[in-house]
């Protein structure tokens, strides 16, 4: 199977790869997937005044999963919480030109975004 140029680019030059400290102020962490399924995605956001000022990812999975999470961090930066909620896996599929067998990799990225936002919300609410 041939990969789209964009997938290859994200794979070779991942954007925002890395981690924040989970307990850092304003950081939300989402971890989705399972090693048995062959894919685990960790996505983190750093929020200031309702805006995502930074995002990071680490992914265990295929090239498309890595590209999807890398793209997600790019898109998240600068968005408000509300705008981030609206990112759909289909947007990722379209942007990266993912074939049908790789759609679940984009679903995972959407799940990771949602999980990171929920984690941030939970931490904010408990203050």
């Amino acid at each position: 199977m041939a990969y789209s140029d964009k997938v290859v680019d994200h794979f070779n030059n991942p954007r925002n790869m890395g981690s924040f400290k989970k307990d850092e102020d304003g950081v939300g962490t989402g971890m989705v997937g399972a090693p048995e399924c062959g894919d685990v995605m960790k996505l983190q956001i750093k929020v200031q005044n309702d805006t995502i000022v930074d995002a990071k990812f680490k992914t265990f999975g295929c090239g498309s999963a890595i590209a999807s999470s890398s793209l997600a961090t790019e898109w998240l930066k600068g968005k408000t919480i509300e705008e981030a909620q609206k990112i759909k896996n289909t947007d990722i599929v379209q942007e990266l030109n993912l074939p049908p067998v790789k759609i679940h990799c984009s679903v995972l990225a959407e799940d990771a975004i949602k999980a990171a936002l929920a984690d941030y919300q939970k931490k904010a609410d408990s203050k």
Partner: protein
Amino acid sequence: MKLPIFLDNHSTSPMDPRVLDAMLPYFVEKFGNAASRNHAFGWAAEEAVENARKQIAKLIKADSKEIVFTSGATESDNLAIKGVLEMYKDKGNHIITSSTEHRAVIDTAKALEAKGKATVTYLSVDKYGMVNPEDVRNAITDKTVLISVMLANNEIGTINPVKEIGKIAKEKGVLFHCDATQGVGKIPVDVQEMGIDLLSFSAHKIYGPKGIGALYVRKKNPRVRIAAQMDGGGHERGMRSGTLPVPLIVGFGKACELCEQEMATESARLTAMRDRLQAGIMKEIDEAYLNGHPTQRLPHNLNISFAYVEGESLLMGMKDIALSSGSACTSATLEPSYVLRALGVGVELAHSSIRFGLGRFNTDEEIDYTIKKVIEIVTKLREMSPLYEMAKEGVDLKSVQWAAH
């Protein structure tokens, strides 16, 4: 050194130029039908076919009359299993095979089962992927008509104790079919000594052309009979009809002759190269696990799982090296390798496996390059892996509640 490098010789192999040279006259110049008995065109073709049959038989220590040409090992496996089952249906309908067979065997057995034509025992294997001959013995019933166990596995390279299985088969009077597609031409095969009654193999795995294979069918002690699976002109002693593809057969014969002549030096060379590849990788990468048997293994096979990184991403990071992986992400079914699962390799590690398949035309320089690339990409992807990060923090990954999707 030319890129990309081909290290996927279990899937197929490049044709040896000497094989091509042998084939060329049989396309345009000597194009006859080997079954034409009444003119020189036919005679030339027949002579070429019979010469190839001898070269092929010699490689497995058989008689040339025991070689039946097919389109490849898939057809040979189908013909052997379905042909025996149909021919010996009065005796019984039980087949014994193993859980790590190629799909040409497993799916044939499953299809027969689904149609109610056979009952099948799938023997489990040990942690190295080896069938225990005693398990074969214990599975035999008075309804057993066939044992089908592979010589060497196509993913992990483990070599089965075929001789012991052959002995048990003989003792119990059950026919023994062996899918030797990965072993023929790479390690010595002797159908007499190994007690094999039917043997499948294919030319394209041994530097010959694609589209031609053979089924060895024993003629003596016992005389094995199989029911043809295709009706037609009754070629190949009635077992496989269809005009013989003479150029392919000539190429197959030449490929077998070269393997026979060069096996000793070639297997020593490939073993040394493979061992160097393995050592070079293992020295630098922790938590890299060998899949398959440490010693009872094909000389050109290496299968390693790299914990915390996924196989397809590894392949993607080594785009200029042709390799294969047992990861689900590389398969159409999204299931990781059933062979690795059968050895008890965890699903995570099955996802992380890479198969290296060396061959006649690989060079030391290519191996050096591959070692370097593997170390680079595993290191890079582990940096990117949340699992590696957790493991380094001391988290027991097994204890984590994963949000499966």
